């Protein structure tokens, strides 16, 4: 067992951990020792190959196929230097005011989230792509929406030098996306924060983090961990957990903490999503260009769904199509003519949906689709199909139906064809990448895990700074909100540094 001592240990390097590292880095000038532990590897620029299986195995937990307890949904969680900010599409949206108000967290208002989000929008070069950079897959979505009178919106994105590889979700091969791996972590390291990749935090025992650097398989991607293989006891005056909404609660459950936290793991939401596919007569540009440039959120309040453009890779697409055999293959053979839309359900906290751990301490995610979520996904499917047809598609794949291919001539029957009763585990492929909650903010241990500054109730030296803080769904792509909250947590730690570090 190796021993290490730091003043501050940060666990995780995604939107939360990267932000906290940057914001606390100036303390290094005063002699404060800060380490950031990241479970995954740090890849060299030339290791981002864009190959689906290869990159998914390296940059996602369980290769992107982390299963919920009943096997009805897969969760995509990024690992490695930059966490999920390495594999998102860079869409940068400020949380809606009504959502922040609805969270009802003491001392946390929309104005503060807005102000802090804008700080990171500027830092991450968030802007709108020019018309010439929008590919046909996105243009068709806009055309379909406008023909139907829908209020389609363009995503601001955090890109710098985008070449349109379309490979965002496999890690940008051109380093154009301004995730924490490109912006906040390098800044933190320049200031003196020590980033230790390949180092997994196993549990927290008092103010000591127990961690492991595992041996790398031969030929594995990424640089070796800067620490040698073995188990570590790392003492710290402050510990900040930023391992994401599944791994943060799981880590705290494995830990010996001075407080009882009955709400730990509860309040999980994830925006369950369907990837929908439609076939056009002619070839369209789909796997060249930024994949996610537009969205439609006008149905959030009435029907609980958001639509976003998307473009996925062969296996992910194949998995998302229901059925098998020749009808399935027909869609796959039409790949260069496919248009895609992502339907995200804005789920809400449900007492059955939560994180626990199994006998080996591995996280287990319990998630049941509520009737409201099934209805949202069905309504989102019907609306998407209308958009596809309005954009000129010939055939649309609708997973929640008895017959899953709808031809143009049956477009009028969509309401009858798509039905939430076909929404059954194992019949429809559902995935989620916006996992939130599990260490929710609130007033006391009776209603939450942390206070509004991310401080764990009953453990003044222990903080959380990631999407697990969300008391309910954010109803939009979450990374800017995570950064805003992490910025706030870091501010509190800086303010209290003299007490906490003494």
């Amino acid at each position, binding site marked *: 067992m190796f021993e290490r001592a730091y003043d501050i240990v940060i666990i995780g390097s995604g939107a939360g951990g990267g932000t906290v590292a940057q914001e606390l880095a100036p303390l290094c000038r005063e002699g404060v020792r800060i380490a950031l532990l990241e479970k995954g590897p740090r890849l060299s620029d030339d290791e*981002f*190959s*864009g*190959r*689906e*299986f*290869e990159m998914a*195995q390296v940059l996602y937990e*369980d*290769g992107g*196929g982390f*299963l919920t307890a*009943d*096997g*009805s949904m897969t969760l995509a969680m990024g690992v490695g230097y930059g966490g999920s900010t390495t594999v998102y599409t860079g869409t940068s949206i400020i949380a809606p005011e009504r959502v922040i108000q609805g969270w009802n967290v003491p001392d946390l208002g929309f104005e503060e989230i807005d102000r802090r989000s804008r700080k990171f929008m500027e830092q991450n070069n968030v802007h709108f792509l020019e018309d010439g*950079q929008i590919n046909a897959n996105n243009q068709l979505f806009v055309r379909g929406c406008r023909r139907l009178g829908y209020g389609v919106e363009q995503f601001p994105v955090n890109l710098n030098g*985008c*070449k*349109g*590889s*379309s*490979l965002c979700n496999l890690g940008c*091969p*051109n380093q154009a996306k301004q995730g924490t791996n490109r912006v906040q972590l390098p800044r933190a390291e320049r200031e003196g924060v020590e980033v230790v990749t390949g180092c997994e935090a196993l549990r927290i025992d008092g103010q000591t983090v127990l961690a492991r650097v595992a041996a790398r398989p031969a*030929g594995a991607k990424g640089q070796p961990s800067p620490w040698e293989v073995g188990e570590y006891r790392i003492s710290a005056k402050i510990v900040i957990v930023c391992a994401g909404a599944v791994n943060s609660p799981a880590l705290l459950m494995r830990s010996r903490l001075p407080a009882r936290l009955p709400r730990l793991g509860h309040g999980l939401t994830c925006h369950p999503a369907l990837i929908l596919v439609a076939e056009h007569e002619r070839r369209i*540009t789909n*796997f*060249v*260009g930024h994949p996610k440039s537009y969205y439609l959120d006008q149905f959030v309040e009435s029907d609980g769904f958001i639509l976003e453009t998307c473009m996925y*890779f*062969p*296996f992910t*697409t*194949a*998995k998302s199509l229901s*059925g*098998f*055999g*020749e009808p*399935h*293959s027909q869609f*796959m*053979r039409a*790949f*260069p003519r496919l248009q895609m839309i992502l339907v995200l359900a804005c789920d809400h906290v449900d007492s059955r949906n939560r994180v626990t751990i*199994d006998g*080996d301490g*591995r996280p287990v995610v319990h998630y049941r689709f509520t009737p409201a979520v099934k209805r949202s996904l069905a309504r989102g499917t019907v609306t998407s199909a209308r958009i596809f047809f309005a954009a000129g598609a010939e055939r649309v794949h609708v997973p929640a139906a008895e017959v899953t291919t709808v031809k143009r001539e049956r477009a009028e029957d969509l309401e009858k064809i798509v039905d939430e009763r076909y929404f*059954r*585990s*194992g*019949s429809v*492929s559902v995935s989620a990448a916006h996992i939130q909650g599990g260490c929710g903010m609130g007033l006391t241990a009776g209603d939450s895990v942390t206070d509004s500054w991310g401080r764990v109730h009953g453990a003044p030296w222990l903080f959380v700074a990631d999407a697990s803080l969300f008391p309910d769904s954010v109803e939009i792509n979450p990374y800017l909100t995570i950064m805003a909250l992490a910025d706030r947590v870091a501010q509190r730690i800086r303010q209290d540094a003299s007490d906490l570090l003494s």
Partner: protein
Amino acid sequence: MTAQPTTETATILRPALPVFRAVVRTVVPEAKALDDTGWSELEALVEESLLGRPRGLQRRLRLFLLLLQWLPILRYGRRFTGLDSRRRARFLSGLQHHRSDLIRVGFWGLRTLALLGYYGRGAAAQAIGYHPDPRGWEAS
């Protein structure tokens, strides 16, 4: 990078390899044209994806493949690998729409592995016209 089977991982599928291959051929009809190299690559991808997954999941996969091989005897008097392609498809369709969540989810998992192995290969991506280039617009 091409995934290579290892001694350790090869044990996950090996006991039921003929059944798994029969499932893949039914799920993706194009797999009938695969040569030995293609199958080897497909199976290596599946093995690699299973590596590091909980042992319980690996056990359930083996059990599901075993059941899938023998259950058709009740209906067709033959094991799954002995059925013609039409009956294989009909049997798998029954699993996909089965009233039991457990059976449907089990089949979904197996179908996912078959699709991962087939479409995870570079050759399959090329064959369906998917050929992204990191240079993006510049290369198109």
